[in-house]
């Protein structure tokens, strides 16, 4: 089963550990279920043979940087979204880039298990990737699907699958080449009326069970204490009521303004299949149109909410609009 991509990752990880360049390599290995991949932390060179990377690696590894001890030298197998998350976290002074060694892998996209398994009674026994196709063995039989049909929506709308600012790029073909900022899929949502937009949002938010898996999966949710965990003062309803569910989705998304790297890990972690990347993508699109900023791309450009600008043109226009109205 080992392909050349995995072999190259393993060889690189082995070299880094043997030469003592890093203390730990963070990557993916097979999980306990046949179609699940789980993150792994490898400290011995002999153990590197379990490292793999494929379309079933649904987590964003950048989150584990927040949990590792300070001063540890870390190597990480990164795809496009992970490298951008790390870049954004480095900009926010969460991590020192010098202590990290990034093994970049051009991303081939992550599979959406919901699209693979259309009927609830079907259990997935195995998933194999064969080039542009995916062979799925279900309890009811085997089927061959087009890879592009079962990609996760965040990967379909991804603009930068190639890792940014990596120390080394594993030279294998990725999903596609870079493209400039394109979130045109949001036009449909923005074209709806006020009532329809609220209705869409309400339908998604009312399924929320407040498990906060989206927060735990998100590399950019780095607060020491989340606003929903506060009990004194209690900032918002913490029960499963419409007010609390909507407040969680609105404020969670708003905290990601100009920070979200659109990896979609929140959606893949959600047990209720709630769509939520459209919220952060809407905000990111506003930020891009207003300030020309895209999270995690430019190592020198600070996020707009961390910098304070006079915004003279925008401000005077606003002021004039006020007096006119």
């Amino acid at each position, binding site marked *: 089963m080992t392909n050349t991509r995995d072999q190259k990752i393993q060889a690189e990880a082995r070299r880094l550990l043997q030469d003592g360049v890093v203390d730990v390599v963070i990557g993916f290995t097979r999980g306990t279920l046949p179609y699940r991949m789980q993150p792994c932390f490898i400290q011995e060179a002999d153990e590197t043979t379990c490292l793999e990377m494929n379309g079933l690696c649904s987590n964003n590894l950048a989150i584990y940087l927040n949990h590792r001890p300070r001063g540890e030298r870390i190597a990480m197998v990164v795809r496009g979204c992970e490298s951008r998350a790390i870049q954004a976290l480095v900009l926010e002074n969460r991590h020192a880039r010098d202590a990290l060694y990034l093994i970049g892998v051009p991303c081939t996209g992550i599979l959406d298990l919901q699209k693979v398994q259309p009927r609830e009674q079907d259990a997935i026994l195995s998933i194999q990737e064969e080039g542009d196709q995916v062979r799925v063995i279900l309890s009811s039989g085997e089927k061959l699907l087009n890879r592009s049909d079962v990609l996760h929506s965040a990967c379909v709308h991804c603009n930068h699958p190639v890792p940014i600012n990596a120390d080394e790029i594993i030279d294998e073909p990725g999903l596609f080449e870079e493209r400039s900022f394109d979130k045109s899929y949001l036009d449909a949502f923005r074209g709806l009326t*006020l009532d329809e937009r609220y209705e869409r949002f309400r339908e998604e938010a009312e399924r929320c069970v407040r498990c906060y898996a989206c927060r735990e999966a998100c590399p950019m949710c780095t607060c020491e204490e989340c606003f929903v965990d506060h009990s004194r003062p209690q900032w918002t309803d913490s029960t499963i009521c419409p007010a609390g569910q909507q407040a969680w989705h609105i404020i969670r998304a708003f905290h990601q303004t100009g920070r979200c790297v659109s990896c979609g890990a929140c959606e893949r972690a959600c047990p209720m299949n709630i769509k939520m990347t459209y919220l952060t993508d809407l905000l990111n699109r506003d930020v891009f149109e207003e300030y020309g900023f895209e999270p995690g791309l430019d190592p020198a450009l600070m996020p707009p909410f961390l910098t304070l*600008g006079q915004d003279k043109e925008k401000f005077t226009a606003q002021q004039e609009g*006020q007096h006119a109205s």
Partner: protein
Amino acid sequence: MNQTRPAIVLFQCQYCLASSVDQYWVEHELPANVKLVKVPCSGRIDPLYVLNAVQGGADGIMVCGCMPEKCHYKEGNLHARRVLAEFRNFLHLLGYSQERFVFHWMHIDERGVIQSLLKDFEEKLEKMSPPVHLKTRAFSRENA
């Protein structure tokens, strides 16, 4: 329902009203339908406070802060403007019309402006039908 006056939440920076007469009016003589949230600086207004007002049934939100370069804390108002303007866009996308959420950056020379601003805003809100979206907390309290 329409006989009641629109509920307005006024977020006011404590330094933005240069005239003590205006400040006295805001603190003691506000109409009953206006709720005052006085903050040390407009930069202190977290989007969550605004959202709580919206969910609690506010028909309109008014934010009063200082002009740029006139902030007591140097640049709190610059932060507020970037963040709250974006939050207003976001709420507009989710069903709370942006016309219900207004900013006024007070000039230091302005005297007796806040009264007319509130009156105009109230008249504008009266012409609109009351907001039905995102008013989740007020709704659940009525049902309880």
